[in-house]
């Protein structure tokens, strides 16, 4: 049995290196796609977005606020406007991403105890840019506002420490753990890569058995496996898993450390959950391949099944915010438990004891689909033997 499995593994490696449907997806695409994803987010942050200023105050304070806004990471003041219509037109045609308005007689109003409203307009049709600009603008304007309160209190003769306490009675210290600067590269790239590797594995393994039938090599494979479907599946699984490990090495030894601030080689925990993910993908893919004879239909099924994986996994938009039926759909994809475990093991660097639930879910894919693949393939092999006889 072991000898048969070994022979099938060697045979499968040869197929992976010779069939374009295998080597292009398993060996050529991973480095290309992974580096592309990492390079897209090489800038890490959204910087210097064009912003307009509508300054009706023309005062020292408005100029000071403008200077402080210009100093932020996301804001680059590129336009001056004189009215709201011009401002909205600029936002509408994309000349600027946001605008800030200082009202007339702003300084006088502050001195005369009249509340002043500084308006921040953003084009929230582009929500990422809008939120970042708002965050920076709010930080500046609220700090400036606090400064005004502080000055007023100090002028009444209050000691600075006490005045400071009154400006900010509750001091909130916020810690952004695991990705403190909200780097898009650090956050998005590992997730995109994990989902891409899942998709690649499934897109290839949906073809591993039906392609043998199509190319007429199933007979030879049957002989090599001594008529045992499990020998074939284990042999092929080992070959594909070893290629997945090569991709793991490429990603964790080169890409993550170089472009996503990850540690070299990942970790033992990451390797374990990645291996479980790949085993789940191989099992699911081979089950489809054992059931569906038409390679094109199998490929389409693989495509429809895997392409929504990233958005359904809850990586970007939380799963608790999606309808219940979509949540069920998310659970039939191995990437969902994997990415949950990935957050804990990769970002939070927690031990495997924190991800036993997710590991169990990944194993469930193997436990359910692998026997199914054996069953369907064995039936095919038996039929083949009968035909041969």
């Amino acid at each position, binding site marked *: 049995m072991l000898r048969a499995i070994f022979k099938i593994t060697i045979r499968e490696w040869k197929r992976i290196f010779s069939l*374009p449907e295998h080597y292009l997806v398993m060996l050529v695409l991973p480095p290309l796609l992974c580096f592309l*994803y990492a390079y897209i987010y*090489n*800038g890490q*942050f*959204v910087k210097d*977005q064009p912003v307009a200023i509508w300054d009706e105050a023309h005062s020292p304070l408005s100029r000071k606020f403008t200077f402080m806004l210009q100093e932020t990471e996301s804001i680059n003041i590129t336009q001056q406007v004189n009215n709201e219509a011009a401002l909205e037109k600029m*936002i*509408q*045609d*994309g000349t600027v991403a946001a605008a800030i308005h200082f009202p007339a007689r702003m300084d006088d109003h*502050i001195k005369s105890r009249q*509340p*002043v409203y*500084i308006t*921040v307009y*953003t084009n*929230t*049709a*582009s*929500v*990422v840019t809008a939120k970042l600009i708002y965050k920076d*603008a*709010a930080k500046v304007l609220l700090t400036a*506002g606090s400064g005004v309160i502080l000055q007023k209190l100090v002028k009444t003769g209050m000691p600075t420490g*006490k005045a400071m*306490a009154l400006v900010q*009675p*509750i*001091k*909130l210290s*916020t*810690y*952004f*753990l*695991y990705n403190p600067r*909200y780097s*898009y590269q650090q*956050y998005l790239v590992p997730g995109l890569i994990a989902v*891409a590797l899942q*998709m690649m594995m499934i*897109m290839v393994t949906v073809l591993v058995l039906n392609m043998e039938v199509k190319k007429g090599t199933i007979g030879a494979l049957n002989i090599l496996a001594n008529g045992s479907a499990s020998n074939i599946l284990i042999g092929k699984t080992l070959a594909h898993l070893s290629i997945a490990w090569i991709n793991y090495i490429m990603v964790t030894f080169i890409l993550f450390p170089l472009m996503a601030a990850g540690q070299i080689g990942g970790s033992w925990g990451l390797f374990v959950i990645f291996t479980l993910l790949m085993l789940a993908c191989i099992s699911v893919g081979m089950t489809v391949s054992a059931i569906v004879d*038409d390679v*094109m*239909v199998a*490929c*389409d099924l693989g495509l*429809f099944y*895997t*392409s*929504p994986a990233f*958005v359904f996994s809850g990586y970007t*938009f939380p799963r*608790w*915010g*999606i309808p219940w*039926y*979509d949540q069920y759909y998310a659970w039939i994809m191995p990437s969902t438990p994997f990415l949950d475990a990935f*957050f804990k093991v990769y970002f*939070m660097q927690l031990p495997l004891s924190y991800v036993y639930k997710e590991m169990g879910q990944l194993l469930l894919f193997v436990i359910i689909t692998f026997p199914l693949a054996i069953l369907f393939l064995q039936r095919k092999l038996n039929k083949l033997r009968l035909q041969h006889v």
Partner: protein
Amino acid sequence: MFDSFRHIIRLFLREAKMVAHDHSLLLTLLIAPLLYAFFYGSLYSYKVEEKVKLAVADDDKSELSRAFLQQLNKMQIADVVGAVNLSDAQEKMYRGDCQGYLYIPDGVQKKVLALQQGDIVLAVNAARFLPSSELAGAVTKLAMTVGAGVRLKYNEMQGLNTAMAMQETQPVNLDYRPLYNTRSSYGAFLLPGLLALILQQTMLLGLAGSVALDKQRRHIPELVRTGGGSLSTALWGKGLFYMILFFCYACFFMTVNYATLDIPFRGRVFDVAVAFILFFFTLIPLGVWLGSLFNSQLLAAQLLAFSTYPIFLVSGYAWPYESLPVPMQWLSSMVPTTPFLHIYQSIVQSGATLQQNVPSMLHLLALWAFYVLLALLSLRRLNKQQQALSL
């Protein structure tokens, strides 16, 4: 002229027949767009995330801390989960039961009443972008509101009447006006782009798959012959089927999907229709050229399946074009999605007109000319190759 028209009709019928007889093309062109539109559409149907779990360890157990937590729990974004102490709160985050924790140490109220700063700590799991940033924003806002409340009380105690005390509490205020997506919701931002992307990708997959199938079966000379020997007629005759089909899908998405998903449409129907037609006219030669690069339909489907995310990510929709590295900006400029999404987003979401998008329209036209040239050259090459082989 009449002859060309007749050839185009023949090619249209040929394509319809080919699609009807091929399971994969049928799946990609007739089922996938509707299925994807439903799935992706429903995914963001709630549009905003709500009730992000936040563990709270309250060691102060004061009136102030209880009021603070009560207000926090009332916020749409937060769902307070009780924790026994700080380490229990941390453990809850590690287990994935919450997205962060808030710690209120003992003595906060006492400090605030003594006009000293009371420190509280918020830690959020920033590895998860959206929930953590929303939570941090909400808690910061609440802390500032509570601070303003304390100042208001102080000003009143100084003898100011309520109105004056109120004015003195917050002399500089921020008035935030998010335009075109007033709730700043992720769903409202992403859905229009996703629907357009579904149309693009299914069209490219189907058309490239069909050309690859023609190539695989050595039917390119027959395709050109059906077009009366004209490469251009062959290109547009084959493309007409996709043009009509996807224009119908676009109409369906812009009416039915927009209505059911409650996506606002602020522009003019004529403008968005022109943008879609121009976009499809650019995608058709791109799809034909891409299909001509693959030796089999299977390979075309397999490899083009991986183009969806990269195209979307470089298009400037989710990540600003200016923030892409320069070589990525070049790549982005070569993809029709980039100018199209710019036009489409500004018309649909901001209510802009075609006149306000002239540079992007010209960009799309330039790409149309470029891909027409590539498609014609590849058809000519394949025609020659396969004719030579058949001889």
